[in-house]
């Protein structure tokens, strides 16, 4: 529904922006069966018989981490072309077959991993898995489809420039991660897209779409045994290739003070302020989760929202996020405020960051953060689609299935001292990147905010 937003104007979208959290009380543990097929494919299954449907999520270690800077967009293009023709079916046959049964099938690129997904009614499970297997194992990358897809991606890149939030985020990631793949736009650039050939796609697929680098979660109205038998039928013959061990550099971020502005005819300034963060595997991940919830991850429970929206009325939404990927991460506060109030909002963010570093949080704040992070887990795995996506991530990031049981302990063991320590370690009110997309005359940014 491009351009058409539902006529519901919600009070905030920030409520769900606790991106860093994965709370799991023991009582809601999932009955997950983990199987490793002979070819190395990891299969995770959960039975849910509430509705006659089956959801499959696939994570393949074939994201943009594995492409060269001069071929940026290769991984994403390869993922997007999976549904555009195989040895057995044309693009139109694929969409016609899956859509005729009201199912959904697709794949899209990412930086850490590529995601493919399938949703079908139970009666169509075999048909769906047949298609899913075909697009993952046998894509043909037909030249005409490559050309069309490249043009669509270039068009999409252009269209995205219309969104101030996208522009700010694109610049921010580039400033933080530099030449590391995390610093690039996953879709690539018009120039790098032009340089990608069919041969690049074919060899990328051959090297990276291998069963030992694939995680598959099957969730829904299907037994563990049925799911395993079907996955063996459709993916068991997928041969393990000699995949070169990926050599991925850790994303290093240098701390520095830098401001980047973009001048546009806008009524609001879109602002991102932040710096490097932590990777998903960092031991401080959970303490950082709690700290960030209190600072700006907790929606109306957060200090940033309380101060900058509730008390000062400067924004509709403001949030902070530590986005933690496999090889690095970033911290960012983002908001929109009218051009004229940009300086004031930036000053308040920095004040809140300093406050986090200078004084311990209150007992109430700490306990509220813990109770939300641990108590909200059932919502994060409410639907089959969410469970499947969650399981792929747990496996990819090496958290182990025991994570589901132990998460609450990780969170509950965080102390006020830990929160203060990680605020001092991972927040910085001096060396940060500030991106402001605005009517710059009206925003009239200050040199200093302290």
């Amino acid at each position, binding site marked *: 529904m491009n351009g058409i937003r539902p006529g519901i104007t919600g009070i905030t979208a920030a409520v769900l922006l606790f991106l860093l959290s994965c709370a799991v009380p023991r009582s809601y543990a999932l009955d997950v069966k983990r199987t490793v097929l002979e070819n190395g494919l990891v299969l995770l299954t959960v039975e849910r018989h509430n509705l006659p*449907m089956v959801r499959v999520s696939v994570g393949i270690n074939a994201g943009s981490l594995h492409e060269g800077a001069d071929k940026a967009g290769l991984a994403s293009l390869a993922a997007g072309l999976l549904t555009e023709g195989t040895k057995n079916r044309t693009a139109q046959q694929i969409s016609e077959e899956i859509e005729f049964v009201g199912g959904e099938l697709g794949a899209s690129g990412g930086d850490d991993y590529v995601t493919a997904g399938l949703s079908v009614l139970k009666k169509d499970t075999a048909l769906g898995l047949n298609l899913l297997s075909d697009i993952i194992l046998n894509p043909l990358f037909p030249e005409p489809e490559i050309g069309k897809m490249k043009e669509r991606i270039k068009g999409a890149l252009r269209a995205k420039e219309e969104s101030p939030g996208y522009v700010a985020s694109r610049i921010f990631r580039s400033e933080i991660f530099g030449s590391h793949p995390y610093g690039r736009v996953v879709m690539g650039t018009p120039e790098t897209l032009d340089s990608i050939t069919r041969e690049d796609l074919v060899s990328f697929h051959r090297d990276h779409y291998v069963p030992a680098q694939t995680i598959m979660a099957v969730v829904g109205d299907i037994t563990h045994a049925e799911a395993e038998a079907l996955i063996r039928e459709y993916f068991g013959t997928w041969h393990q290739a000699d995949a070169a061990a990926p050599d991925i550099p850790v994303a290093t971020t240098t701390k520095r003070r830098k401001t980047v502005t973009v001048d546009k005819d806008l009524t609001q300034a879109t602002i991102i302020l932040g710096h490097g963060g932590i990777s998903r595997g960092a031991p401080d991940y959970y303490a950082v989760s709690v700290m960030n919830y209190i600072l700006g991850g*907790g929606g109306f429970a957060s200090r940033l929202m309380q101060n900058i929206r509730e008390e000062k009325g400067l924004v509709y939404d403001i949030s902070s996020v530590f986005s933690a990927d496999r090889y690095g991460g970033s911290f960012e506060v983002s908001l929109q405020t009218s051009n004229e109030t940009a300086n004031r909002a930036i000053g308040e963010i920095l004040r809140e960051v300093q406050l986090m570093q200078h004084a311990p949080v209150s007992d109430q704040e700490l306990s509220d953060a813990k109770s939300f992070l641990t108590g909200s887990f059932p919502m994060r795995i409410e639907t089959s689609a969410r469970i499947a996506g969650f399981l792929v991530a747990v496996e990819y990031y090496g958290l182990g299935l025991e994570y589901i049981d132990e998460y609450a302990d990780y969170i509950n063991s965080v102390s006020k001292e830990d929160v203060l320590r990680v605020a001092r370690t991972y927040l910085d009110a001096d060396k940060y990147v500030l991106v402001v997309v605005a009517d710059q005359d009206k925003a009239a940014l200050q040199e200093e905010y302290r």
Partner: protein
Amino acid sequence: MVLLAGLLALCGPASAGEEAAGTETVRADGAVYEETLPNGMQVFIITDRSTPLAVFEVWYNAGSIHEKPGKTGLSHLLEHMMFKGTPSHGAGSFSKMIKRVGGIDNAGTGKDYAFYFQKLAPDRLSLSVEMEADRMSNLIMDPQETLSERNVVMEERRMRYDDDPQNLVYEEVMAAAFKNHPYRWPTIGWMSDLKTITHEDLLTYYRTRYVPNNAFIVAAGNIDVDSLMALIRKDFGRIPSGDPVRDSIPEEPEQLGERRVFVRKEAELPYVFSAYKAPNILDEDSYALDVLSSVLSDGKSARIYKSLIDKKQIALSAGAGYSSIQKYPHLFYLYGTAMPGRPIEDVEKALYEEVENIKEEPPSEREVQKAKNQIESDFIMHQDNVYYQAMMLALFQMVGDWTLRDRYIDGIRRVTPADVQRVAKKYLVEDTRTVGVLIPVKNREAQ
């Protein structure tokens, strides 16, 4: 997503009946328990034993169509003020308490309604009941807080509309398509109106419309009906009925020719949004229009994708939609964003060609069957979420009767290819169309 495409809106007030409590008691999974409290407030509970969650919602017949010109945006601003506390619970404390028990809460305002919800563990539902009942009649609206929240809403408006060119086109098309019906103004309100809304305006509206006989409750999830009803009867039952709410919504006159509006705005690509007057879901033709929308635009095998995006490569994105779950007749629409370098006129023309093709020859049996399968499968898959279960019931109830929900799929199944052709001929006609075009201008160069 045919069913929920476009503007959700409607309103079909819970009428102030005086039925005895417990009109129906069915406890099987998926069944709906229905009761009307003596003060006129209706309650609907969907039991779903498969989930560890519950959702609790209060729906008010209080959307932007109930506002007066000059005070647009009032309903939505009031929705924001509903989080500002009562004598028993301070500002923001409702949300904090819900989060403390691992739940989330939020609210939304549409053209026909406003609603409030919490999603949480079923054993915490007493919090929802107590606090929703409290803010239904005891809201504090501090004049200072009102001014501050007005600023928040103005920021929201800037973000959603003033700096979003495609949404501005949508807003302009609504304003042109409807010249008398209050669907013509945006739910968020015109900026100049927002500046004039006073504390007194909000209070009057709140006292008139936030009454039990103008609202209903929907709950869904792993719920014990008896205990939840006991809580509801206690906390909501003691709120007195308000004066009967009489809505006189002006009728929209017949449209006698195409209307066309333009938005010149800093943007990257041109965009067209073309909307036809269409009936709502109370009309039997709505099912064929839903199928038509799906045939045109549901997926990569649908006509618009195949033609405009894949074959002609003139549009970056394009589709059709139908907003039928509205209290009053609304719109069926076509839209498209041009590929860089392609004229928007070509996109608009190609969209109409797809409509003309269907007028000339009905879609094939297989295409219609595919559309029906897509709509039905979508309907089933969405039930995986308690929020959606409650939302569907509430939307149908607002339009008139929640049991429409259970007749919806049958209605879709009745549609024939000839029906699809007939409704295309009947409704997708030039004279009742309003077209909005975004003309990108560049005022700045990026530094």
